């Protein structure tokens, strides 16, 4: 049940975020636009001069673009799984952070597939995929899965923000232009919070929360199968599906912690997002770190013990040429959150946020190590191929487009927070249902 006074108080608190854009935010947006502009220039360079301006060649046909695609898609699925799970479990501490997870899901999902388009050499032939695509091809599975996921996440986000949009429409103190009021009015669908409307909305949101979790798991497994159905060393693994899902949720949880830290600072949400929330997300991150470490170890151990020739040579490359990225992504990236959250004295907001940054960088390298070294060790030499073509290193064009993707992610996140509050005002104004003391006790002891 919503408490009207609490809701109005919260709307009054969040109104300045929606009404005004500070000069610091404006500079931030201009900076992001500048980075995106650099990316556009890089893209024009790539289109006019061809993919020769990238580091990709005959052997290594996938580079940073595919790494970024996997990374962004992972963040999206993490956003979907975290928001869907928190919603279904009705966890009380979810309320201030669930909106951020929903934004994470949809914004990453809009950016990720863009990297596939950058990787394709002949964009003019893209429609061939629709005309001649075959269901037998894992690439077609991916296209179907991602497009289905986009629709699902959009519907879920819309259902989640509907009550807040209706609140903003009805909040007379909000000083925004008439056109924005009109948008809120149209998008609110005449929702006034009658018991029947509320019941229908809750039912639809519950259904979609379940769906986004299921779809996220299926879609990221499909992405993993693109690798694992091939006979390439390092890719042909039966555990790649769950391994990818765990890695995705792990990296996404870390991004969510960073988003919590940033919005807490920028919008002064210290009262709402407390240490308790960071520790709760930290605990989730630790569980995922342990699972990620377990899957990684299991994957490499079986490859190493099997002593298959190509697997052996790949592991040798990982421990020689890629020694530091390998150690960083698979050891430091797992141990740091375990130590920070595991030792009570280290369990501070800053430390948890810093460990989240380590996790993000480690997981990006993890994807890099999955894609590149395997392609650098092909089964057969390609005729007339030069030795330097078998080695990959990203060029400025690829890094510019990577930076542009990150900037676009930040820009859309910023703009989304200017449209609807980054916190679910309607849920936060609800009176919590009475829960059994045992549950509270268990939660307290956990945190």
């Amino acid at each position, binding site marked *: 049940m919503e408490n009207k006074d609490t809701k109005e108080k919260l709307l009054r608190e969040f109104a300045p975020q929606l009404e005004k854009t500070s000069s610091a935010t404006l500079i931030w947006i201009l900076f992001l636009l500048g980075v995106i502009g650099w990316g556009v220039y890089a893209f024009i360079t790539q289109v006019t001069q061809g993919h020769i301006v990238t580091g990709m060649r005959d052997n290594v046909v996938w580079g940073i673009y595919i790494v970024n695609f996997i990374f962004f898609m992972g963040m999206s699925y993490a956003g979907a799984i975290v928001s869907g799970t928190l919603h279904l479990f009705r966890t009380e501490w979810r309320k201030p952070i669930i909106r951020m997870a929903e934004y994470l899901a949809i914004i990453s999902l809009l950016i990720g597939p863009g990297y596939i388009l950058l990787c394709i050499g002949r964009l003019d032939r893209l429609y061939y995929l629709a005309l001649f695509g075959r269901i037998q091809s894992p690439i077609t599975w991916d296209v179907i899965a991602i497009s289905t996921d986009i629709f699902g996440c959009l519907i879920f986000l819309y259902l989640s923000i509907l009550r807040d949009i209706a609140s903003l429409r009805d909040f007379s103190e909000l000083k925004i232009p008439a056109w924005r009021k009109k948008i809120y009015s149209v998008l609110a669908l005449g929702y006034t919070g009658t018991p029947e409307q509320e019941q229908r909305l809750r039912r639809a949101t519950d259904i*979609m929360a379940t769906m986004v979790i299921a779809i996220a798991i299926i879609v990221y497994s499909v992405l993993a199968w693109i690798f694992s159905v091939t006979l390439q060393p390092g890719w042909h693994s039966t555990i790649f599906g769950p391994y990818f899902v765990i890695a995705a949720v792990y990296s996404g949880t870390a991004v969510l912690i960073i988003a919590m830290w940033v919005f807490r600072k920028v919008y002064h949400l210290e009262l709402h997002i407390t240490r308790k929330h960071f520790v709760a997300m930290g605990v989730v991150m630790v569980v995922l770190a342990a699972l990620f470490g377990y899957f990684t170890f299991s994957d490499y151990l079986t490859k190493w013990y099997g002593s298959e020739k190509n697997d052996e040579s790949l592991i040798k490359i990982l421990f020689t040429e890629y020694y530091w990225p390998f150690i960083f992504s698979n050891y430091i990236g797992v141990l740091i959150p375990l130590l920070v959250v595991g030792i009570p004295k280290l369990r501070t907001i800053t430390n948890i946020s810093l460990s989240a940054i380590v996790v993000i960088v480690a997981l990006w390298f993890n994807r890099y190590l999955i894609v590149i070294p395997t392609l650098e060790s092909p089964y057969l030499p390609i005729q007339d191929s030069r030795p330097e073509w078998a080695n990959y290193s990203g060029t400025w064009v690829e890094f510019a487009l990577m930076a542009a993707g990150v900037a676009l992610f930040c820009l859309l996140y910023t703009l989304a927070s200017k449209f609807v509050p980054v916190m679910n005002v309607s849920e936060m104004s609800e009176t919590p249902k009475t829960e059994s003391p045992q549950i509270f006790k268990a939660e307290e002891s956990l945190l």
Partner: protein
Amino acid sequence: MRTENKIKVILFFLLCSCNLVASTQNKKDSVTDITPSITLSYLSSNDTIILTANIFDRKEQGTFAIKNAVIDFSASGDKETKFLGQAIADDEGNAILKVGSANGLPKDKDGKTTYSAKFAGKGKFMPAAESFSAKAGRIIVNFSKQDSLSFIIVTATQIDSKGTIIPIQKQKAIVYVPRLFNLLKIGETELDETGTGKVEYPGKLVGDSLGNITVIARIEENDLFGNLQGRSSISWGIPKQYYLAEKPTRELWTPIAPIWMIITLVIMLTGVWAHYIYAVVQLVKIKQLSKKNQNNQL
């Protein structure tokens, strides 16, 4: 500035820039004449002459084939020129003409015939021509067995100015067998005074299902003869065993996916989209309820 004025200013700049681009394009198109280049290659194979002219435009960015260009081929000697025929360049700029035999073609005092490929020019494409001189010759491929060894015998001949057949001497001949994508070199030999050379057949080469294998002998890029080729077949190959898998395992190349895959996909997509539709229907009903409430209030 009012919104209307803003739109007008933006439209003005858009129109100006479009006009500027269009006029620059027209200017470029009208002044640039293209001078094409032609390369002419000559191959004499088993009494058939194959002339291939490649027409292209060389630019800074690379070479671009000129397709549909009409190429006139002719052969000339000391006294006369004979028109051989016309061919139209394909997508790669290749115009190919096959001439039955070198017999009856005009020759100069050394017995050489000059073959020409000419493009008359069309529109912005300027005329271009290329020629190549070659002496008629012939290569015959025979096979022989000596003890347990098998040999490919290459014999090359030419016709002198008096019309007498004489051997081609002291030239290098290369022997190939055609494989799936290219020719596989199996040996080379120096032709002796009788115009004959010998290459040992390597064995263990896969032929067709009956074991027939084609052998090609060539004198390549020769100043006098151009490309001269002879070919012959023999059943020395290992018969190819055509293996047909009982059931394709992944069927990526078949037009229809396996039935289990189609059923799985249909069930999954139907399940997912049914839930989406359910959620959207709830939204529509929320909207309808609001209208109903408004009407009740009125």
